[in-house]
C-alpha cells in the first residue's frame, strides 16, 4: 500500500510539474501585438534605395562643406579670397532661397475653363477652395522634382502662402491673382512633374470645373522670376547668434 501511495504521489507530482511548465511557456509566448507587423519587401526595398541615395548625397555634401571650411581657415589672412568665397556663397544661397531668376527646362502649366463646357461646373458635393488646391498642386510639383515654381509669376519660397479670400480673390504671396486662367511655371524634372500633375487633373475638374494643361519647355527658355517681396527676419535668428 505504502509503495502504491508513493507511486501515486510520484505520478501526481510529475503531472503537476508538467502542467506548470506548459503554463509558464504559454505565458511567455509572444503576443500578437508584440510581433512586428508584416511589411512588404518591395516597399522596404524602395525605401532602402531612397535612403541610400540620401546617404550618397550627404557624404558628398559633407565633403563640400569640409573643403569650404578648410579653405576659409587656410585663407584666413587672404581677405580678398575670403570676400570672393562669401560672395559666391551668397549667390548660391539666394538661388536656394528663390530670390534669383531661374531659366531652364520645365513645364508651363495653365489652369483654365475646360474645353468641354459641361465639365465647367464641377461635380463635387462640397466646395473646394482654389487656394487650397493650388497649394496642393505646387507641393505635388515640389514632391516630384520641381526646383522652382511660380504662380502667375509669383515665386514660391519658404515664406510663401496661397489663400482664397473670396470667390473672385485668391492671393499668392499676399498679392491677388487672376483666377480665370492661372499660369504656373515649374522648372525641374519634366517627366516626374508630369506624373505628379496627372494625379491632380481629376481633382481640379471635380472640385473646380477647371482643366490643367501642361506644355513642355525643353529649349532652356522657361523663366521663373525671383521672389519679389522684401525679406527681413524680426524673430528668427541663427541658433547660437546673439544678434543678426
Amino acid at each position, binding site marked *: 500500500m505504502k509503495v502504491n501511495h508513493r507511486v501515486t504521489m510520484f505520478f501526481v507530482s510529475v503531472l503537476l510539474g508538467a502542467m506548470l511548465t506548459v503554463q509558464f511557456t504559454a505565458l511567455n509566448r509572444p503576443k500578437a501585438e508584440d510581433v512586428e507587423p*508584416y511589411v512588404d519587401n518591395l516597399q522596404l526595398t524602395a525605401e532602402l534605395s531612397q535612403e541610400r541615395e540620401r546617404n550618397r548625397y550627404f557624404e558628398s555634401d559633407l565633403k563640400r562643406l569640409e573643403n569650404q571650411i578648410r579653405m576659409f581657415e587656410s585663407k584666413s589672412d587672404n581677405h580678398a579670397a575670403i570676400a570672393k568665397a562669401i560672395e559666391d556663397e551668397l549667390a548660391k544661397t539666394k538661388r536656394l532661397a528663390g530670390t534669383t531668376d531661374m531659366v531652364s527646362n520645365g513645364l508651363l502649366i495653365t489652369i483654365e475653363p475646360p474645353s468641354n463646357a459641361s465639365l465647367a461646373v464641377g461635380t463635387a458635393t462640397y466646395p473646394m477652395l482654389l487656394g487650397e488646391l493650388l497649394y496642393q498642386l505646387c507641393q505635388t510639383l515640389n514632391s516630384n522634382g520641381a526646383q522652382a515654381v511660380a504662380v502667375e509669376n509669383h515665386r514660391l519660397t519658404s515664406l510663401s502662402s496661397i489663400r482664397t479670400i473670396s470667390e473672385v480673390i485668391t492671393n499668392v504671396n499676399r498679392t491677388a491673382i487672376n483666377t480665370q486662367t492661372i499660369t504656373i511655371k515649374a522648372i525641374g524634372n519634366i517627366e516626374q512633374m508630369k506624373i505628379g500633375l496627372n494625379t491632380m487633373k481629376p481633382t481640379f475638374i471635380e472640385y473646380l470645373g477647371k482643366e490643367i494643361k501642361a506644355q513642355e519647355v525643353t529649349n532652356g527658355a522657361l523663366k521663373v522670376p525671383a521672389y519679389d517681396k522684401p525679406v527681413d*527676419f524680426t524673430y528668427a535668428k541663427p541658433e547660437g547668434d546673439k544678434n543678426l
Partner: protein
Amino acid sequence: MTKKRNPRVKLTVSLTLISAILGLMLALQYKNTKAATEEYSRIPTKDPRAAYTADQLKRIKESNKSLEQEIEKLNKKLHTLVKEAADFDKQAVSPELRDELTKYKIMAGLLPVKGPGITFTVADSRRDASNPDDLKYLITHDSDLRMIVNELLVAGAEAVAINDQRITTTTGIVCIGPTVMINGVSVPQPFEFKAIGNPTTLISALENKGGVIEVLSAPENKRFLTISPRKQSPSVTLPGYVGDYNGLKQ
C-alpha cells in the same frame, strides 16, 4: 477493524479529490494552450528577406541621421567663420555682406534658427470609427498639414518645421499611400509643429472662428483630430534643412 478501514477511506477520498482537481486543471490547461496556439498561428510569419531589408534600412537611417547632424554642425561652423571674417576686416568683408548671407541662409532653411514662436502637435483622433467610411475623418491627412503650414505663413511665420522637417522653397507635403512624406522623407504621426514668429499673431490665426483648428477638430465638421494646446515660447529652435533642394544644391 474500523480503525484499519478509516485511514484507507480517508486516503481514497483524498486521492479522489486530488484526481478530480487535477482533471479540472488539465482540462483548463488544454483549453488555454489551444487558445494560445490559435492566436500565435494567426500572426503572419515574417518574410526573412523583408527582415534583412528592414535591418539594412534601420542601419542606413541611423547613418543618415548622424550625417544630417554632422552637416548641420558644419553649416553652423561655416556661419561662424563668415561672421569672424567680417568682424576681423570690415573693409574686405562688409557686415552688410555677412548679414545678407545670413538672411538668405535663414530663408533657404540652411541655418538652424531660434526665436520666439509656438509649438503644438497634431495627431489622429483617439475615437473608434463607428463605420469604416468615417475612418478618413479621424486620421491626419497631408492636406491638413498643408493647411496649417499655409495658415502659419499667412500669419507671418518666419520659419516652420514639422517633426524637424524644415519648410523650404522645394518642400512638398504629400501622401504616398498611408504615409505622409515631407521633403521626401516619411514622417509618422504625431506631427509636431514648430513655428518662429509673433506668438500671439500665430495663435490667433490658427484659433480664429472658422479657422484651421476648428476645421480640423470640431465635431460638427466630423473631424476629430487630436490637437494639443498651442504653446507660446520665447525660444523655439528649428533645425536646418540638409537635403539637396531637388538637385538645385549640387
